[in-house]
């Protein structure tokens, strides 16, 4: 029988919530970076921009085939050797953003491919400049369709943030570990950390499922 100490649980809650704030912050910033960069990747690939296209392709293939943890280590511990020193949180956000940009670029690609060929042809027939074809015609049709898939990426990222404790980001699981190190009671801190993740992930997943029903699954 597991012994649960309510007084202890209530006492450690504020520290865990502080850690959760860091987790949420890293997820939000990482998502913004991943969404923006992923979009750039997708447009570069589809437009076949010379040289850049190959660079993006190479980066995405390489980055998708290596673990996030290795990438985080490289950014945090190896970049200082070439003169780039980042705070743990900045390095973590960068690692998450770059890693997930590779996945969001595929999501955008699916959305762009779902825009009918006739839309591109109509844009050509009207002589619209490339920037307007993308901003006025293609992306406004592609992005609403991929919002649920992008949302699922945010949830995945949220659950991967604890990996960043390896580069000393004090998010919610790192906080639970610190508490355990002082009290030798792991049950409450880790259970509560898990519940905190659940309380955010599950409602978010339900919201996304609703969104999927509205825009259709791609």
């Amino acid at each position, binding site marked *: 029988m597991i012994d649960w100490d309510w007084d202890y649980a209530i006492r450690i809650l504020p520290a865990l919530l502080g850690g959760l704030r860091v987790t949420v912050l890293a997820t939000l910033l990482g998502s913004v970076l991943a969404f923006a960069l992923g979009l750039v990747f997708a447009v570069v690939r589809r437009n076949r921009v010379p040289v850049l296209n190959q660079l993006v392709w190479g980066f995405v293939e390489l980055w998708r085939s290596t673990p996030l943890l290795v990438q985080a280590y490289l950014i945090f511990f190896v970049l200082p050797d070439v003169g780039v020193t980042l705070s743990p949180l900045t390095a973590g956000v960068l690692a998450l953003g770059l890693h997930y940009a590779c996945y969001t670029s595929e999501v955008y690609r699916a959305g762009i491919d779902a825009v*009918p060929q*006739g*839309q591109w*042809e*109509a844009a*050509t*027939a*009207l*002589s*619209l*400049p*490339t920037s*307007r074809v993308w901003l*006025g*015609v293609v992306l*406004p*049709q592609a992005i609403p369709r991929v919002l649920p898939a992008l949302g699922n990426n945010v949830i995945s990222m949220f659950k991967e943030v604890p990996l960043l404790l390896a580069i000393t980001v004090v998010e919610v699981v790192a906080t639970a570990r610190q508490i355990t190190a002082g009290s030798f009671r792991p049950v409450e801190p880790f259970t509560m950390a898990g519940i905190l993740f659940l309380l955010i992930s599950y409602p978010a997943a339900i919201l996304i499922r609703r969104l999927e029903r509205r825009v259709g699954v791609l």
Partner: protein
Amino acid sequence: MSSEPMIVFAGVEKRFGDNVVLSDLDFTVAPAEHVTLIGPSGSGKTTILRLLMTLEKVNAGTISVGGRYLSHMEKGGTLVPADEKYSREVRKRIGMVFQQFNLFPNMTVRGNLIEAPTRVLGLSKEEANSRAVELLDLVGLGEKIDEHPSRLSGGQQQRVAIARALAMRPDVLLLDEVTSALDPELVAGVLSLLRDIGETTDITILCVTHEMGFAQDFSHRVMMFDGGKVIEDAAPDQMFSAPEHPRTKEFLAAVLNRS
């Protein structure tokens, strides 16, 4: 009609892989002329329109519109493939209406009509808007200006698409089976709109259609295609009442019996 042709195809060849769609094709179209292209499917009619709209590129030969090459440009006395900027310049003078309408669903009817005039021709919002209002009145859809295309019937969408093409004030208008995707009861309205436009403007019109009645009274000239070549080129009365080529006779008998 002026002596300078509006459209010139010279030795045009188009292949898709090993499949030769057009071979050594020569023809000209005079300004303000209405030409209908007829022929069995796969005969290359639609490819001609798509080449003119630069949606496809020629494999050999040249096309010019209004005295300027379409897919080539002159550089140091020789012809080189046109770059995107040059193509866009020449293309501005050409409009196209598609079988599937291809309105932009993320914009209102107004948005569809003012997008290109403001972004490409540099018209002010006010100028483009008054042009849009005028054209929507012409196509009989003035009250739909703030609707989204998805709220319109197929016939209404196609009339908006025609207005959108006209908003660019093109010299050349390409009509690619514009009534083929419409319910039968909506076809007549679109065709009578096109007859109006034909009578009241001096736009050069190339039209691919299976509506032979329309082809007969709308066109100045009908070209019959088969196997990527023009096998007969005649005034509509001649073409429909006394076709000469056996393939034309066969084709017309088949399509006229069907309808």
